[in-house]
């Protein structure tokens, strides 16, 4: 009784404080939009469309990585720092597989002869990443499941260094050229000077969307997906209902890494350059996306990825590239301060 009164009081207080904070946040967003609108108006619509397309492609990649973060966080409440490096690994594995499948830059194969091996490489890289991620979970996280919260977090950072170290050993510290194998055709809108949407942009977005739909179907329709949702909600209760917790958690890591591996290959195909430590920043940005959408929330992570990708490309295009990352991390901090449950929200941080 007393506690319910106290609860009501806290909620009331949080409500008035929340309204004030939300107001401030909305004001900040409004100011940013007004500045953006003036910039957009001066640069013309063609440039704007180009930026938006770039932002969508960019955001799809972030969304793919963010999904892994959010799923893992949702189920074991761990920031899996190694996840960003699993994403890089996807790029490295596919880079290694490309010549094996006979695909080289400027190669003569086109059409189905190109698409099929690329899909095979995509699937293989995804599976390798997934196996690696499950191994990491088995070796570094599972033995520590009942340890203090800090312990698995540090092994996660350690695993991230180990993965980076392996890729560093394998290919060295330099920017690696990733073959530009996708056709360079593009759809031109509004004549030669208008914006052009490349085949690459479309391919990236389509692959990401297909994977995300598959994930949603999996989580919502299958038995294992149901088990994952149950485990995320209440692990002990799920265990009592006969769900194999270890298997479910391993499955979560597996699926998260599948998406990250796909993201890694798409990243390579899209930007044509990969580095052994790209996963660190990409991972942090993707994590920001996951938090932005409401950590633990799958649709939120996808939406957050798109929004962060869009913010990045708008900031790169209209403001200053050097400040983009500051902006993104500032958004991370502000979202957590003003709306810790994210834009879609799910997990309530105050118990």
């Amino acid at each position: 009784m007393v506690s319910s009164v106290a609860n009501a009081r806290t909620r009331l207080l949080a409500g008035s404080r929340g309204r004030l904070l939300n107001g401030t946040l909305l004001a900040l967003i409004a100011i940013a939009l007004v500045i953006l609108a003036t910039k957009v108006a001066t640069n013309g619509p063609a440039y704007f469309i180009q930026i938006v397309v770039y932002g969508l492609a960019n955001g799809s990649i972030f969304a793919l990585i963010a999904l892994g973060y959010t799923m893992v966080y949702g189920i074991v409440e761990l920031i899996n720092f190694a996840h960003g490096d699993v994403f890089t690994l996807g790029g490295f594995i596919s880079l290694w597989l490309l010549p094996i499948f006979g695909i080289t830059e400027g190669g003569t194969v086109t059409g189905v002869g190109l698409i099929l091996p690329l899909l095979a490489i995509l699937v293989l890289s995804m599976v390798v990443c997934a196996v690696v991620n499950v191994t990491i979970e088995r070796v570094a996280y599972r033995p520590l499941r009942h340890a203090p919260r800090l312990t698995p977090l540090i092994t996660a950072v350690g695993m991230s260094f180990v993965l980076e170290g392996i890729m560093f050993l394998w290919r060295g510290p330099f920017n690696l050229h990733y073959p530009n194998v996708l056709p360079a055709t593009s759809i031109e809108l509004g004549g030669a000077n208008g914006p052009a949407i490349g085949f690459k942009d479309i391919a990236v977005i389509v692959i990401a969307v297909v994977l995300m739909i598959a994930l949603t179907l999996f989580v919502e329709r299958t038995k294992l997906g149901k088990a994952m949702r149950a485990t995320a909600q209440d692990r002990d209760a799920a265990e009592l209902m006969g769900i194999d917790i270890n298997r479910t958690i391993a499955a979560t890591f597996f699926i998260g890494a599948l998406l990250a591996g796909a993201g890694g290959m798409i990243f390579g195909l899209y930007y044509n350059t990969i580095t052994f430590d790209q996963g660190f920043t990409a991972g942090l940005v993707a994590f920001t996306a996951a938090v932005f959408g409401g950590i633990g929330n799958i649709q939120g992570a996808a939406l957050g990825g798109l929004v962060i990708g869009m913010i990045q490309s708008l900031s790169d295009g209209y403001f200053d590239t050097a400040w983009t990352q500051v902006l993104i991390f500032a958004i991370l901090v502000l979202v957590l301060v003003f709306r810790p449950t994210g834009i879609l929200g799910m997990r309530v941080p105050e118990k």
Partner: protein
Amino acid sequence: MRIWRLVRKIWETDPRVDPNPLVYAILTLAAILYPVWAQVSTGGQGDFLISVLADAGVYILLAIGLNVVVGFAGLLDLGYAAFFAIGAYTYAFLASDHLVVTPLQEAVHLPFWIVLFIGLFVAAAFGLILGAPTLRLRGDYLAIVTLGFGEIVPRVFKNLSVWTSGVNGISALDKPVLPVWLNGPWSGDPLEVVQNFKIISPMAFYVVMVLLLGICVVLVNNLRRSRVGRAWMAVREDEVAAAAMGVNTVRIKLLAFAIGAAFSGFAGSFYGAKLSLVSPENFGFSVSITILVMIVLGGMGNIPGVIIGSLLIYGITFLFLPALPPLAEEWATNIGLGGLVPPNGDWPGIGQEMQRLKFLIFGAILVLTMLLRPQGLIPSRVRQQELRKGVQEDMTIEDVNAETTA
């Protein structure tokens, strides 16, 4: 035999006597003997060794500060290097000619001893600003916010090149000055009083560092045993129970966070003065993680453990790993595998290969320590008992469940 028994008794005393006098005695003795050893073993050329330990001292200071936040209050701070950067840049702005080339066009030269405390307060203020809105939240959210903050600060310093000269950093910072210093036969000079004696020699930095460390250790130990310290532990173990006992949890967490930030700013100012150079590259995420690893490896919550952990990790990351490539080349040549040394086709040469192994080794150390000894090398005994008891309690709950479902 009797001495041995006495030593054992001190070592195994009641957990309440956690600041173990024996460990502190050994550490103090080691701190005093180290310069002597360095000079004797190198025949008077030990300045480098002493300077290295003075640098390591900065990290010890940082680790002690982070220990207050993470070890005592149980708050996870992943952007600790940000406050370090703030302290270092505070020193750079207030004690160098640099401000002449900024829009201010006026150099500020405040004395080292004052800037040390300004750095402390500036960092603490940033800690308060960051902590006030976020410490109301629970769990990992603070970790994420500090992570974001830790990424923002070095980038801001890098991008605001009008004020900070960007990636080039700020160099030629003032050397610390003692108001009065006695020269004498011990320093090879005739007896005289020197006004405005500049601290340049590594030995002087070492002495200042050891003194500051001593003060900080006493301070932190007193804090830990005070009402505030006990409130921190209560919040760490069970926030709801602590609140029910009348602890103002938000205030007490904010205090821990600000004190941690203050330590970091203090260490940053010292670091700037010692290195005479600050650059945004020196304050990245890897620094935050290194400090965190230091305290976790050493044994969280236990100051001697933290000190030893810092020394170990500092040794590994800044001395052992950089020295590894030449060492490996030497070994390879000595055991008749000289062919491995030069690069050959895909093989980058053993030196380069070792260079590449660095990440892997550091990562493996992190993972293995956590798996094999999650409580750290010299754990705080209070905390160890809590951990052990926590596990047992967990088990009894499971047992009860088993009985009721059976």
